């Protein structure tokens, strides 16, 4: 009897040593088309994102990062990695930050773009980065298939309210970037980040009519907070054209007309 107990304990110990897979919060399919899982998935939670991408984690935390789950898939010698970032709120923000305006839009999730060897997609609170590890283009259709299959059972989400306040015309929709903090804004425009501070959320975009300029709408806690910041900026704002509309400050970094934006805001917030 004693020997049987020792044997059972030894077997359990060996099973433990063989490597129990980490609990992964995202349910990766066993395969996608001809591609099969390669290796074990892994995950980083909260502050531990720093262990995965070092200082790059700061940007994701600004957007409300919760977890990232990663799984590789292989077909022959080729490898595609799937990173699924779960955010506290809509993943549109971090998606808008990571995509580029010239990337090709594709039909997947709530929004997706492809740039040669990688695809970015958001679906509800999830951001997907699907990457061909060769670093070369040529697998675009496969990346799109991955995106469509991975997102099909996930709950859809909505874009932030502030983004809805942007006038449709003449804005370049692909240029819209939603910001939750200064790290995002400084990556877009150092000048904007230097002058526009103290806001709770912001959205940056370009206009088809003023391609060299950058437009920013910052939402403050209150109209008085917006006024306070406006008064701080006014004496030294150089080329920036700046107006207040309630709790919002609207700016064009190179001085273009911004009435079309303030009117849209006033209409939207009536």
């Amino acid at each position: 009897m004693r020997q049987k107990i020792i044997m059972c304990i030894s077997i359990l110990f060996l099973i433990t040593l063989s490597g129990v897979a980490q609990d992964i919060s995202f349910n990766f399919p066993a395969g996608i088309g001809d591609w099969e899982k390669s290796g074990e998935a892994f995950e980083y939670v909260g502050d531990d994102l720093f262990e995965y991408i070092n200082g790059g984690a700061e940007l994701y935390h600004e957007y409300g990062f919760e977890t990232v789950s990663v799984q590789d898939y292989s077909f022959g010698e080729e490898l595609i990695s799937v990173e699924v970032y779960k955010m506290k709120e809509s993943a549109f923000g971090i998606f808008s930050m990571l995509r580029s305006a010239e990337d090709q839009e594709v039909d997947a999730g709530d929004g997706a773009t492809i740039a040669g060897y990688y695809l970015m997609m958001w679906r509800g609170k999830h951001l997907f980065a699907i990457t061909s590890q060769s670093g070369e283009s040529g697998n675009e259709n496969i990346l799109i298939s991955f995106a469509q299959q991975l997102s099909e059972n996930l709950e859809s989400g909505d874009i932030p309210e502030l983004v809805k306040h942007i006038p449709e015309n003449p804005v370049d929709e692909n240029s819209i970037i939603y910001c939750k903090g200064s790290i995002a804004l400084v990556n877009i425009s150092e000048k904007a980040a230097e002058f526009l501070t103290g806001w709770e959320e912001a959205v940056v975009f370009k206009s088809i009519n003023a391609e060299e300029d950058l437009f920013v709408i910052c939402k403050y806690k209150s109209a008085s907070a917006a006024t306070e910041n406006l008064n701080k900026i006014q004496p030294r704002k150089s080329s920036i054209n700046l107006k207040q509309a309630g709790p919002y400050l609207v700016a064009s970094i190179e001085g273009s007309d911004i009435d079309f934006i303030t009117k849209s805001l006033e209409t939207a917030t009536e």
Partner: protein
Amino acid sequence: MKFSRRKFNIGALSLGSLSFLNIKGVKSATDEQYPDISAAVGPNATKNTEHAISQLGGIKRFVKEGQTVDILINFMGRIAAAHTGVDVFSSVVEQIKAASPAKIRVISWIEENRRSRNKLQQAVEKAGVEFHHVPQEDESLWEWKEIPQGKILKKVRIFKALNESDVFITIPKFKHHGSARYSGCLKLAMGISPRADNRGLLHANNSRDLEQCIADLNSAIRKPDLIVVDMMETLITNGPSGPGKTSSPNKVIAGTDRVALDTYCLPLFKINPLDKGQVLAAHEMGCGEIDLNKLNIVETEIA
């Protein structure tokens, strides 16, 4: 091959007899014959690396027989545009080997499961050099460095291994970085302090403070004896690990001045080095030269 209008002064070769005056940290008369920055441009990373170092006087100017050599590289990121290039790294190691050092080590605190996610770890193993892992949790391997001159960072831990070798060489990848705007020679110094301090001390404030902290850190640590910057293929968005847009400047740039090399590379991101940031801060703290007009820079196209 063609040469830029800045050519190194070969006349100083006649001063070779004064090489015994080459005290570490002091530019000797023989140093004057070499350019301050040597850039090789072409599709072949190995050829570029060989040429960039040869223009500086060859590896034997920096590594003597019997010496110990430590190398610091960018392990970060799975795609080639994010980490130190395999070919650049391998070429540097092969050149060092030709100088017959006693030991060559790659030093890093990055854990094995992270390092194995890209091809660079395989390159380290293939090169047959020692990999010296410095576990972050082993306090005995780290020492506190006081930085009284630091404007924000006043102290930080660095691994003791940094000061063990005769020669210290870094091979940074110049690329985009979401928090520091870019990562190059100066930013790579964060590979010498543990992750906990990088998070808790350097990244603790806003991104501008991070850049000052990078300068503070560089002002306190051992200056590399040789820096070989990998700008063959690089991430220009979504750094430090991507995925993101990439660019192929096809350059390998060698020198000894961290500030000058970063300044030289900055046009990739259309950043003015005189704007507030890590390069200006490091220059103001005496870490190197920001005015490239004062330097002898050689750029060569390699077929």
